[in-house]
């Protein structure tokens, strides 16, 4: 299967994501510069983390107007799995593919630390291998990572099962401790924590298996056994 890794000016987790897709999960991954278009036969799209356009104006807002986003929107509509991690999540939110906004952390500081996620929806292409409420030790690294939605939208999200990950404890002041959400169809997922930093035991001081399930879920969705 073919996975596209979209690269914006200022993306900085693109190479980490590519390494994990190709060297750890043996996938056929390809970089796509933000001014290029995505091929029609692509099986999944990943928007990696970083500081697209130096986070100017607001994280993700300029990249959301990149030419490639139109293609990502088309793919999303067709049901192709799309994952946005950290800045990728911010871009998906800013481009209207996911609900909500991402605000500055409550501490007003950039935060880099390990935390625990809880899986709240195990029906998405990136979570289908998890047990519901399963915990994932994973690092976060962001300055604008506080997910916010108003109360009405929050009710909708709950009703439509769009909350994918919650933080196990209060981390940055996110609404309802939300760490990741999906669109109504469930094929577009955004998350602030970095799964690509947690799938190898060498750099994961706690347990690398849960994070690996995010990628194994994608493999299983595509009917590929790893």
């Amino acid at each position, binding site marked *: 299967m073919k996975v596209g890794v979209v690269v914006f000016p200022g993306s900085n987790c693109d190479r980490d994501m590519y390494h994990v897709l190709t060297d750890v999960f043996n996938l056929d991954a390809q970089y796509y510069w933000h001014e290029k278009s995505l091929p029609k036969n692509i099986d999944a799209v990943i928007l990696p983390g970083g500081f697209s*356009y130096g986070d100017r104006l607001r994280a993700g807002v300029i990249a959301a107007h990149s030419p490639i986003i139109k293609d990502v929107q088309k793919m999303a509509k067709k049901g192709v799995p799309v994952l946005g991690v950290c800045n990728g999540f911010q871009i998906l939110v800013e481009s209207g593919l996911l609900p909500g906004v991402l605000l500055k952390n409550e501490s007003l*500081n*950039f935060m880099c630390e390990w935390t625990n996620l809880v899986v709240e929806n195990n029906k998405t292409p990136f979570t289908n291998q998890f047990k519901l409420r399963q915990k994932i030790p994973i690092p976060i690294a962001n300055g604008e990572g506080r997910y916010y939605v108003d109360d009405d939208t929050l009710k909708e999200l709950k009703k439509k099962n769009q909350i994918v990950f919650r933080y196990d404890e209060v981390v940055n002041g996110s609404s309802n401790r939300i760490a990741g959400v999906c669109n109504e169809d469930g094929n577009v997922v955004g998350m602030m924590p970095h799964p690509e930093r947690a799938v190898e035991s*060498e*750099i994961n001081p706690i347990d690398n298996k849960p994070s690996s399930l995010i990628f194994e879920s994608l493999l299983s969705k595509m009917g590929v056994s790893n």
Partner: protein
Amino acid sequence: MSLEPQELTELKSKIGRDPTSTELQIVAAEWSEHCSYKSSKRHLKMLPMEGPLVITEKGYDSGVLDVGDGYVVTAHIESHNHPSAVEPYGGAATGVGGVIRDILSAGTRPIAIFDGLRFGDIEKDQQARWLFKNAVTGIADYGNCLGIPTIGGEVEFDKCYENYALVDVAAVGFGKKENLIKNHAKKGDIVVLMGGSTGRDGIGGSQFASDSLESEDRSAVQIPDPFIEKLIIEAILEARNEKVIHAMKDLGGGGLSCAISETADALEIGIEMDVDKVHTRESDMHPDEIMVSESQERMLIITSKTKFKKLQEICKKFRIGCSVIGTVKSDNQMHVKKGKKTFANLPTDVVANATLLDLPSKEPTYLKTIEKEKKLKPISDYSKTMMKLLSSPNIASKIWVYGQYDHEVGIRTVVKPGRDASVLRLDNGKFLSVKIDGNPKQCYINPREGAIGCFEEACRNVVCTGAKPIGMLDHLQFGSPKDPEIFWTFLESLKGLTDFAKDFKIPCVGGKVSLYNETPDGPIKPTPLIGVIGLIDKTPQIPQRISKDDCLIIVGETKDELGGSEYFEYIHKFIGGKCPTVDFTESKKNMKSVLEIIPKKLLKSVHDCSKGGLAVAVSELSMNNQIGCKVDLDKVPAKKLDADRILFSESHSRYLLTFDKKNLSKVEKILKKNKTSYNIIGKFGGENIQFTKGKKSIIDLRVDKAQKTWLNSLKDLVLHG
């Protein structure tokens, strides 16, 4: 800020005429202490700079070490003290930017940042708190945006830095040996300025940094733009892969003046350039301003006319400026024009090589009495003293600092910050461990032994991860060299470092000298900062969770040498006494033993004793693992010392080994074989950190209480004062 009268006379005699105003600006920048090293250069030669792994090339700004399998590691250290003292956010951020470009100019990708920060007494001094907070944010915002992990460093507070700041940044790069840029140029090649535009920020920055800080000259501070720097990194690495770079240099202190003259001098060529071709931020800049502007995020590249097309294409992709500003000549002249009019035409060797000084030195008078100890006030409750130390800004956890740095990006960080030294994995299966250490309190008391101590401490920290030291970076920070007493302390530190480097066969692969670090109250304490790069072939020592009944061994002797210790200075407010000295033979023996045990996978953790002594080192193990520990001070190898001396002495060459008791005989066998001085001093368990002397309890603290204080006190101090 310009040339000294005798320097002007010298310049006139060398070029046989009066210099133009542009020439004066160029030479003043290049002959500044910051760019020319005129006071220090003749002495720096004493450091050993060669070794089996060291690769040297023309015109490199960073050191290169061969780490095997066709890979190299590059390393460099810089400071940005003067700018950070005036504008901490921009000063610290551009400090990161500068050192990153030094790594990039060798053709390697930057993979880690380290920062050493020093400020005044933040408990009392609001200004110091403001400087500290903003310098940390500056580093975080810059490094995080670049996607280069900041994985280590140190933070220290001392009254000698009041109204001032030391911001040191080291960086490490990694790449294939075959991709190193072998700087070369020939007649007809073109000179390209790539990256951000040239503006009026940072005008005269290098001269500003070569004088005492008397006025707050904000225009001399550069403005950071990490986004442009990130684009430059990716564009240059792409250009490197396309093999379109003949030679490359970053623009730092002295701007175009230094980059052009130093490149031309190193490659023995001439360069003719036109300031009208430089892409500027403002339209009415004078040639003088363009030549000395220190606007950030710029690189100078020499390429051929045919390869330029590809370079231009790459720059277009990343939308960064790329101007052909000149051509390579064979006349060894630096020729600056504006259109057809000449503004400067100087021999490059005159510009790039200031006359070196041989400054007088004299032992400072204060040193004659400083080792004398005063009678200390007796302490009735050591548990209280211990809590006070754990909450003191120099000893408290620095998690508030490194928690703001992305230390995971790049997915190389095997041992995370907050331990002895961080460890990165490399693409050839080996691991790299790097640590920077300084100790101005000890260097003030004994500049020679203090400097050696910093070197040994940095080595000790990488040894704790299982790494063998393979290279050293030195950053020598002192007050005005024109004061013979200060210059003496500079020379003593340098001699000490040289002796250690030669004896331990650790080559100096890069460094920097920063002089004129003076505050309104006088010079800073001597602050050499030493970075040590260690290489691990197979097995890094990754800290494992310590559990009940695990054993604790101390390797090395604890001696009565508390001068410059946190115990003397923070608890007793006493500056003086005998500072710790490194016994080279003992140091080597201990390193050898530890490095022999680690690959056998017998240990759960290895931790060094440094600031705060044994008491703090043991407490850190307990707090990091949330488990109690009981240590008998009578078991610590030390010659009849009082309890407080054993607890708080900062003697070097000491390691704490923690392991499952079933491994005891195997560990002891190696220590005995190497005739290492060691002893089993305690075991883990319970909920309290306890130190006893025989049956008498000296310290008894709950781990959770200690941990809470240790983790939160620095953050509380910064946020709430």
